[in-house]
C-alpha cells in the first residue's frame, strides 16, 4: 500500500510538473507561502477594526472551503476511472492489469490526494505564517496550533463532501433525506442552545481552547464519514448501456438564439447526461456558498448587514466564475480537432453557455437578498455578482484558455490570476465602504472582461492546444 502511495505521489508530481515545467509547478506552494507571509503583516491592521478571533474564523473557513472543493471523490466514480485516468494510463487505473482491487486503489488515491493538497496548500500557508510570526511578536506555539487546526479544517471539509458526494452517487433519495435531517438538526440546535459556528466546528473550537477531548471529536468528525464513504464508494456500476432518444437537433433548434447553437447544445447535453450539473450546483456552488453565508453572518455584529450582503455577492461572483470549469472539464480539444472549428469559436461557445449558467447565481443572489431583508440592495448585489463573475471569467479565459482545470496549477498563471482578480475585488470593497450604491459602478468590469476575452481569442488561437 505504501509503495502504491509513494508511486502515486510521484506520478501526481510528474503529471503537473511535465505540464508546466518542474520549476513553474514547484513555485505554486512557494507562492502560497509568500501570500501567507505577506498576509500575516496585514493582520495587525485587521485586529484594530475587527474583534479578536474573527480573522481566525475567516482563515479556517477558507481551509474548510478548500477541503470541500477537493473532496468530491464520490461523484467521480466511473468517470474518474474511465475518462480522467482511462486515457492517461495512470496508476489509479491499474486494477485492470495488476492484482489490486479498485477499492484498494481508490482508498490510496484519496489518501494521496489529501496528503498532496496538504503539502501543496496547507503546509506552505502555515509555514508562511510561522516565518512571519517572530516579526509580529506572535508566540511560536500559535502557528503550530494553527497548522493542526487548519489541517483539521481542511480535512473536515474534505471528509464532509467525500461522504455527501458518495451518498449522492449511491442514492439521491438518501442524500436528500440526509440533507433535510442535517438542516433540521442544525437549526434546532442553533435555536435551542444558541450555538455559534465555533461550537459546531471542532477545529475552530480547538484553536480557541486546546483539549484532547476536542481533538478527539475533531478527528472523529473526519474519520467516521471518511470510512463510511470509503465503504460506500463503488466503481461497480450496473453495466447498462443506456440508449437515449436523439435530442440534439430539436434542442439545437430551440437554442438557435445562441451564437453557436451546436456548441451550446453539446454543452447542455454534456452537463445533463454526465450528472455534473446537479452535482456541481450542489457541491461546488450551493454548499460552499451556504457555508460562507453562515460564516459571514456572524460578522453582522461588527459590520452592517448591507455590507455583508454585498461582500457575499462578490464571493458568489468569484465562485460563479468557476462554472466555466464545469463546461471545459467534460471534453478535450481533441474532440474538435478534426472539425472546422477554431479555438476562438470554441471559447466563444463556452462563454455563451457560461452566460446561460449565470442565471443560477443571479437567482441565488436574488433569493439571498430578499431573505436577508436587503431587497433595496438587490440591484447592486446582482450587478456586483455578475460583473465579478464575468470579469473573473475573462481573466480565466485569457490565462488558461480551454484548460482552466489544469493550467491554473501553473504558479505564474495563478499569481497573475490572483493579482488581476484581487485588484478588482479590492476596488469593489472600497466602493462598498464609501456607499453601497456606488458599487453599481462595478458594471464597468464588463469592459475589461470583454477585453480579456478578446485577448484570449488572439492568444489561444496561435497556441498549441493541450490534449487535456
Amino acid at each position, binding site marked *: 500500500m505504501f509503495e502504491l502511495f509513494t508511486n502515486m505521489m510521484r506520478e501526481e508530481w510528474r503529471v503537473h510538473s511535465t505540464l508546466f515545467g518542474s520549476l513553474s509547478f514547484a513555485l505554486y506552494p512557494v507562492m502560497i507561502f509568500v501570500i501567507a507571509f505577506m498576509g500575516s503583516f496585514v493582520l495587525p491592521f485587521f485586529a484594530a477594526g475587527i474583534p479578536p478571533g474573527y480573522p481566525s474564523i475567516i482563515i479556517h473557513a477558507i481551509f474548510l472551503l478548500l477541503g470541500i472543493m477537493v473532496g468530491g471523490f464520490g461523484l467521480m466514480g466511473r468517470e474518474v476511472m474511465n475518462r480522467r485516468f482511462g486515457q492517461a494510463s495512470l496508476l489509479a487505473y491499474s486494477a485492470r492489469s495488476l492484482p489490486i482491487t479498485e477499492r484498494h486503489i481508490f482508498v490510496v488515491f484519496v489518501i494521496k490526494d489529501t496528503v498532496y493538497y496538504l503539502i501543496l496548500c496547507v503546509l506552505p500557508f502555515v509555514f508562511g505564517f510561522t516565518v512571519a510570526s517572530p516579526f509580529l511578536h506572535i508566540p511560536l506555539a500559535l502557528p503550530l496550533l494553527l497548522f493542526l487546526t487548519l489541517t483539521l479544517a481542511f480535512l473536515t471539509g474534505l471528509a464532509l463532501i467525500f461522504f455527501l458526494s458518495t451518498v449522492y452517487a449511491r442514492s439521491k433519495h438518501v442524500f436528500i433525506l440526509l440533507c433535510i435531517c442535517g438542516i433540521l438538526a442544525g437549526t434546532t440546535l442553533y435555536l435551542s442552545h444558541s450555538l455559534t459556528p465555533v461550537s459546531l466546528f471542532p477545529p475552530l473550537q480547538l484553536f480557541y481552547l486546546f483539549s484532547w477531548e476536542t481533538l478527539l471529536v475533531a478527528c472523529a468528525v473526519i474519520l467516521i464519514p471518511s470510512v463510511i464513504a470509503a465503504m460506500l464508494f463503488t466503481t461497480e456500476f450496473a453495466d447498462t448501456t443506456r440508449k437515449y432518444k436523439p435530442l440534439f437537433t430539436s434542442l439545437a433548434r430551440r437554442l438557435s438564439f445562441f451564437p453557436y447553437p451546436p456548441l451550446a447544445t453539446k454543452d447542455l447535453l454534456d452537463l445533463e447526461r454526465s450528472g455534473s450539473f446537479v452535482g456541481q450546483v450542489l457541491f461546488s456552488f450551493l454548499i460552499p456558498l451556504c457555508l460562507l453565508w453562515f460564516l459571514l453572518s456572524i460578522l453582522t455584529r461588527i459590520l452592517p448587514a448591507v455590507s455583508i450582503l454585498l461582500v457575499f455577492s462578490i464571493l458568489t461572483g468569484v465562485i460563479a466564475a468557476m462554472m466555466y470549469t464545469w463546461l471545459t472539464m467534460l471534453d478535450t480539444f481533441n474532440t474538435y480537432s478534426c472539425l*472546422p472549428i477554431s479555438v476562438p469559436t470554441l471559447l466563444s461557445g463556452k462563454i455563451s453557455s457560461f452566460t446561460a449558467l449565470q442565471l443560477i447565481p443571479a437567482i441565488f443572489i436574488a433569493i439571498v437578498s430578499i431573505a436577508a431583508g436587503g431587497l433595496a440592495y438587490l440591484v447592486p448585489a446582482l450587478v456586483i455578482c455578475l460583473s465579478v463573475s464575468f470579469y473573473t471569467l475573462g481573466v480565466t479565459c485569457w490565462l488558461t484558455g480551454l484548460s482552466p482545470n489544469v493550467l491554473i496549477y501553473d504558479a505564474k498563471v495563478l499569481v497573475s490570476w490572483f493579482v488581476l482578480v484581487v485588484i478588482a475585488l479590492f476596488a469593489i470593497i472600497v466602493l462598498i465602504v464609501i456607499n453601497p450604491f456606488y458599487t453599481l459602478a462595478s458594471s464597468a468590469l464588463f469592459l475589461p472582461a470583454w477585453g480579456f476575452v478578446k485577448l484570449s481569442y488572439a492568444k489561444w488561437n496561435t497556441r498549441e492546444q493541450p490534449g487535456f
Partner: protein
Amino acid sequence: MAPVIEARALTKMYGDTIAVDHVTLSVEKGALFGLLGPNGSGKTTMIKVLTGQTRQSAGSATVLGIDVEHDPIGVREHVGIIPEQETPPSFLTATEYLDFVGAIRKIPDVQKKADGWFDLLEFDDQRDVLCKDLSRGTRQKLMFTQAFLHRPSLALIDEPLINFDPIMQRKVKDFLIGYVKEGNTIFISTHILDIAEEICSEFAILNRGTLLFTGTVAELKARDQHLDDFFLSLVRADRHV
C-alpha cells in the same frame, strides 16, 4: 494539375525533439497514398500538420491548394480527418454526434446520409448509445462516418483499420479503393505494411522524422520486391546511419 497535397521542407519540433524533419512530398489527385513508418517516426505529426491541427516549425504545405498555416480551418472544412485516437464527445449518442458534425459542417439531410453509414459499417443498433459507452471498434466506425459524411475530395486517415475485425477491414478497404476510383484522394498513415501493399497506389517511408523514400507500389512489384522487405532494409540502414 496541382498536387492535392504539397509539403516543402516541412519541419515540426516539440521542444528540442524533431518530429518531422524537412519533409518534401506531393500527392496527386486520385491517389491512395500511404505514409509508412515505424512507431514514433512522425506519421501522426505529419497528418496533424497537414490538417492544421498543429503548426509547423518551418517549411510550408498546401492541401487542396490551401495554405495549412494561414487557413487551417479552411483545410479542415474541405477534407475528412480520422485521428489515430478516436475521441467523439462522451455524452452525445452516435446519432447526435453525427448531427453535431452535420451542424458544424452545414451538411444538409445529415441523418439520411448517416443512415447509409450505419448500414454499411453495421452499427445501426448502437446509434442511440452514448459515445463513451461504445466499443473502440464502434467508435472508429463513427469517426469513419464523420470523416466521409460531407463526401470530401480528400481524406486523411491515421491508422485506418487498427480497431476493426477482419470482416470490417475488408469492407473498409473496398470502400477506400472505390472512393479513390470516384476521383477522390486518400492519404493514410500506417505501420501495417500489408494494408499499404494491398490498397495503396503510392507510398512514402518516414523514419525518425526524415523521408527515406517515395514511390509507387507498381514500381516495387516490377522489381519483384515485397514492401515489407524493402521497408525493413531501408529503416535498418537508416538506423545504422
